[in-house]
């Protein structure tokens, strides 16, 4: 069970009003928390010990039985029980599979002549960012929760980096009329939303927490959509890519906010 803890020995001695052993005294000199407990002849330790609640024997197991049964009966429940590395790999594989399907079924017409190095660079960057955000989305609850600041910083750094990779160095010879621009952007937006679905749904469903981290799932889905659209859409222009490709992520984030607002109201 627990590893032997010198704090524990000091605590027990203080509660029992027993003399502290040599080892306990040496520990007091090194541990300011125990020193604070031992001050004033250990009164605080005894006050805290007296506040221990009694062991209750209610019907916890009876309540847990149906919950665990329902969990084990559902396919999602069984998937959620996979080890964390397997859940993260599943989300990543869903995104990779979507890209692969488009490579095989409907790749952009210029793919054979498109610089392979750039494709690898773009897909690699999107993949690393998606992996990082999948780890955030599926972080198990037996690990300390990241603070909101850490989460925001990681998300911004990951998406900012890939946006920079995807949107810089693009050609500028793309000048469609406004209606064509909107039509092409909407076309990619619709396909992007479709391409995001496998990774997005898995990231939400495999999250074990009672309130799924939709923002992270939305970012993962958006990155999967961008990777697939890179293989699907031949329009290499920052304006189109922002309005048609990156807007998928914004759309998913907005949907997530709306969903969260509705569940909070309930």
């Amino acid at each position, binding site marked *: *069970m*627990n*590893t032997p*803890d010198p*704090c*524990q020995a000091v*605590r027990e001695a203080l509660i029992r009003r027993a003399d502290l052993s040599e080892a306990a005294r040496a520990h007091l000199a090194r*541990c*300011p*928390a125990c*020193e*604070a*407990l031992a*001050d*004033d002849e250990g*009164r*605080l330790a005894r*006050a*805290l010990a*007296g*506040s*221990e*609640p*009694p*062991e*209750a*024997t*209610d*019907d*916890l*197991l*009876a*309540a*847990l*039985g*149906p*919950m*665990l*049964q329902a*969990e*084990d009966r559902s396919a999602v*429940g069984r998937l*959620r*029980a*996979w*080890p*964390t590395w397997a859940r993260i790999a599943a989300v990543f594989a869903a995104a990779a599979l979507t890209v692969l399907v488009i490579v095989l079924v409907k790749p952009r017409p210029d793919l054979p002549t498109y610089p392979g190095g750039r494709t690898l660079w773009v897909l690699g960057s999107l993949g690393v960012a998606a992996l990082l955000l999948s780890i955030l989305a599926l972080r*198990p*609850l*037996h*690990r*300390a*929760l*990241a*603070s909101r600041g850490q989460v925001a910083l990681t998300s911004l750094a990951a998406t900012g980096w890939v946006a920079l990779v995807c949107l810089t160095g693009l050609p500028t010879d793309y000048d469609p009329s406004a209606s064509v621009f909107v039509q092409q952007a909407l076309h990619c937006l619709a396909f992007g939303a479709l391409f995001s679905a496998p990774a997005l749904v898995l990231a939400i469903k495999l999250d*074990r*927490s*009672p*309130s799924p981290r939709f923002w992270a799932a939305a970012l993962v889905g958006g990155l999967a959509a961008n990777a697939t659209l890179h293989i699907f859409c031949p329009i290499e222009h920052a304006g189109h890519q922002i309005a048609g490709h990156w807007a998928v992520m914004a759309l998913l984030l907005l949907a997530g906010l709306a969903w969260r607002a509705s569940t*909070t109201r309930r």
Partner: protein
Amino acid sequence: MYAAMAIDAGVAEPRYADASDDALMLAYQQGEEAAFREIVRRHAGLVRGLARRQLSREADQKDIVQQTFLQLHRARFDYRGDDKLRPWLATIAINLVKMHFRRRGRRPEVSLEVEHVHERETVGFEGQLEVAEQRVRVRRALAKLPAAQREVIELHWFQQLSFREVSDAVGASLSAVKVRAHRGYQRLRTLLAKEVTP
């Protein structure tokens, strides 16, 4: 598998009564329902105490306790032999409490209700009253601590985790956790002294 769980949580599973937490988790991973019952029996008090000291509503406390063991069930295949079950459960419960407050957009609260006293029969009515009053005093003092200090004291004192385990649970460095504990205990002592001395 879990249909027969309506048993007294206070009765140990004979087969697993002397098993270590690691052995229990291993058996549980292999589908041994009795091992799970023993885990719940052994650690329900830890989770209940933690929920009780963080939340004022009984329904919320019960929900956190149930959710904690549901999360343990979901995460059972993440458990490796070098993990420790008590810090695991404490971290899950603390995270669930944090998520509970995030969802409701409220600050952490501490229950000040006098709970039912189920002391041994040898303790008389006055003794029970004194114990109950002492609990309220401690809870009131704990409520006045900053959340970060209270969280560390909760884990170090009430859940008896080592500082290393506490630092893993709250995601802070070992030295930061020790400083929080030191300041928290000092402040608690001052607050309790004020309560006793009118």
